């Protein structure tokens, strides 16, 4: 089982790669930077990409879209959710 720090690092790499953020990610993209809105500026299409990323990479399926909204806040909340729900 990966630690939270390892997961945050892994998620950061996956998000940058899958969402083609290489040129856009700020230097201080750490665990607390919001991924939507004024943080990374992701949008609803990216949210779907993240749902697929969770299912594909961590085997986690969101039954209720409201859950995803609470999880996709920043890297820390995503890592916490994975640690809690990964099979």
């Amino acid at each position, binding site marked *: 089982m990966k630690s939270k720090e390892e997961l945050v690092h892994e998620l950061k790499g996956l998000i940058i790669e899958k969402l*083609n953020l*290489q040129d*856009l990610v700020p230097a201080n993209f750490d665990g607390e930077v919001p991924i939507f809105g004024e943080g990374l*500026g992701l949008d609803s*299409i990216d949210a779907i990409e993240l749902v*697929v990323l969770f299912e594909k990479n961590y085997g986690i399926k969101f039954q209720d879209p409201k859950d995803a909204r609470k999880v996709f806040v920043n890297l820390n909340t995503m890592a916490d959710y994975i640690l809690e729900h990964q099979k």
Partner: protein
Amino acid sequence: MESKSFYINGIGLVSPQQTFDEHYFLEDVVDYQHTVLSCITPDFKQYIKPIQLRRLSRIQRMGLTAAAIAVKGTQPDLMLGVVTATGEGSSAGKGAFISEVLLQEEKQITPTGFVQSSYNNLAGLVAMTYRMMGYNNNFVSGGVAFETALQDAMLQLIGSPSQEILVGSYDESHLPHLELDNRTGHYKREEGSSLLLFSRLTSGTLWGEGACFFRLSMQATETTWCSLGEPLVVYRPETLDIVDELNSFLVDNETDISSIDVLVSGASGDANADKQILQIEHALASVTLCRFKHLCGEYFTSTSFAVWLAASLLKRNKVPASTCFNSVRPAHPIKKVLVANHYRGRSVTFILLKI
């Protein structure tokens, strides 16, 4: 369609030559040594916002760049709409998406892959980027897609003659497709100079690609390049006398062969497909002959490259040496240019451009 006047007020072209540069006119052309001619692309960040750029495929970037060049200095949101044409759509995007569907057994499919694979993605992308909320259409009709889109755009303009409309085309070379098409003999199998395409004695042609947009209207403006007549597509030209078809097209356009200053010929270097085009070149032997498929290759919507070349000849009043294929000196000024193109010999297109 009753004969009307249409004008080209702006053009953006991304092709295997450096045509995105408005100061460039085929002076130093690239000589490709292989069968596939790929587009020379600009720094996309100069034309597309980074946040938008990251989700676009290569062909979407090329198409949106061509549109950006065509609408530069205008208010695109006031335009009538956008019409696009493609022979096969985003080939690479489709390939990637279908591979994903198969590999993942139709589960966990990402939206970006789906969007990039759809045929109408460029028309939608251009409309959303420039807030063009009017007419939006896309034609996927093989080697006559661009001609069909052009006719549709002209019909739309007749209904709203005070507005401008954006009409464009895109097709990309895609290696897996090339492997399939090579079995049919449509493309050359051996390496060799693209600029010597018409000297090579083997069958087949070169595979090209391109993205192009034209800003059309029914009123000349200070940015007008030239006027553009309605296209005529002659289907299955081998069943007809193509020179008779050309003459009746010219009569419909109130002109004749002796009035044509330059012929832009779509000869592809494939003797099997070029029969009718070579007859047309022969009929216009006293006219300056320009060819272009050694510069951009053959692709479904290559007529858009031909129209760009014809419009550029008229605008610049100059025939680049790289396009000239006979010794007839061009008229000064160049007033009438005839485009005669074909796709694999299945159909021949005539378009007349004038100043």
